[in-house]
């Protein structure tokens, strides 16, 4: 029966194309099929299971942390992954891992959602905070640097915080809720920026296998529309307010463009991912040699990692250090590898979508 007791629409009440019995509840963007709620749950979960199996994302017995923001993607991922883990006996030990950037009115509220998820899904939660890790909250950082480059800090710090949290939990892998729309958007942005290295990396379902903790994206082919529909029908508890420090204008345009394309031709999202995958451009660009940061021990191609450079700037009252055209003074003298030089990290808008 209808969980919500909503009355069926009399006219145009169509039947599900899968079971032919129940009233269709949505049109799948991927296939344009009309499908009922129950059949939708099945196919949604089954497709993610297939992605996990085909790409061999996990091995039995692995410890896996889920990057949990309290938002729709990671909430649905936590729900579906713990369900599939039981149903198909993946044998995974799952954890929720959240980063507390220290953003009043945003992260504190979304963390409340994650704490409820911890109880609802029975997954242990670890929260790692910028304050503990770096001595600064985002609120404090923004007070010093203003709203212009805060996403540089946010992005660099978050990536490292997740890795550190994952190391603390001693997990083998980190999964994130990036969905098909996110990936299509990132493909587009990397093309617009001519960032060949990131373009070929951003469609990989698993990244960072050379780094401390591999990251993977089980929602790589999952449409945002379906994630939100799933959360809505299942009444999953998620948090939806934009980061107050994230204007993200450029990325916003790319997103809007993707959504406009989707309206005309829903397959466009998968097509863009496919194009991204098919860009096999042979470059002579050497990937920067990975060493470790002399200061904190995090992986870095330079003497100091980006987080340490940014922190040094903050602590010395020179917050612009490390932002802009690659003038990272502490690293200038002893650049381990020239290829990463001059590549401004400020060109990235926000860390949440950085692959």
């Amino acid at each position, binding site marked *: 029966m209808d969980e919500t007791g*909503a009355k069926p629409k009399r006219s145009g009440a169509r039947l599900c194309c899968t079971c032919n019995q129940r009233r269709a509840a949505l*049109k799948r963007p991927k296939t344009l099929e009309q499908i009922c709620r129950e059949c939708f749950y099945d196919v949604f979960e089954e497709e993610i299971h297939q992605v996990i199996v085909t790409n061999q994302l996990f091995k039995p017995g692995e410890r896996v942390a889920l990057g949990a923001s309290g938002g729709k993607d990671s909430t649905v991922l936590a729900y579906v992954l713990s369900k599939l883990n039981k149903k198909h006996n993946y044998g995974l030990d799952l954890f929720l891992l959240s980063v507390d950037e220290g953003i009043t009115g945003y992260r504190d509220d979304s963390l409340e959602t994650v704490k409820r998820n911890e109880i609802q899904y029975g997954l242990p939660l670890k929260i790692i905070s910028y304050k503990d890790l770096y001595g600064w909250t985002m609120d404090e950082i923004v007070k010093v640097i203003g709203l212009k480059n805060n996403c540089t800090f946010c992005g660099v710090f978050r990536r490292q915080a997740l890795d550190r949290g994952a190391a603390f939990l001693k997990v083998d892998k980190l999964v994130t809720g990036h969905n098909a729309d996110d990936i299509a958007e990132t493909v587009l942005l990397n093309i617009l920026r001519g960032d060949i290295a990131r373009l070929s990396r951003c469609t990989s379902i698993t990244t960072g296998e050379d780094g401390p903790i591999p990251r993977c994206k089980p929602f790589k082919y999952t449409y945002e529309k379906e994630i939100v529909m799933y959360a809505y029908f299942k009444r999953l508890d998620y948090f939806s307010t934009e980061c107050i420090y994230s204007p993200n204008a450029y990325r916003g345009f790319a997103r809007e463009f993707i959504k406009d394309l989707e309206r005309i031709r829903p397959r466009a999202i998968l097509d863009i991912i496919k194009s991204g995958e098919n860009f096999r451009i042979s470059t002579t660009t050497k990937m920067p040699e990975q060493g470790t940061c002399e200061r904190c021990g995090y992986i870095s191609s330079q003497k100091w990692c980006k987080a340490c450079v940014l922190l040094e700037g903050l602590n010395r009252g020179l917050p612009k250090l490390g932002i802009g055209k690659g003038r990272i003074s502490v690293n200038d003298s002893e650049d381990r590898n020239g290829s990463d030089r001059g590549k401004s990290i400020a060109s990235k808008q926000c860390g*949440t979508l950085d692959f």
Partner: protein
Amino acid sequence: MMQLTLEFGGGLELLCESKKIHNVNVEPQNGSDKLIMKDLLAWVRTNLIKERPEMFMKGDTVRPGVLVLVNDCDWELSGQLNTSLEDKDVVVFISTLHGG
């Protein structure tokens, strides 16, 4: 006069004074005897949306990325803007664009 329940989610509630559920009475528009989604959207924009209407609408329809359900059914199955509404219908708007 038609009694409708309108629900805003996924961050859209922020555009209407953080209130998620609105019980409203809407009259069929333009002298017609029925109300279709196109009319309702115009009505919502005028009467409920208090800020940043561009987050809700683009042209005469919802902004791409806003999902619409009429009685818990995707409006893409019922004719989108031409979906006709009846008394006591429940219309849900959810933004997919906020947060991950």
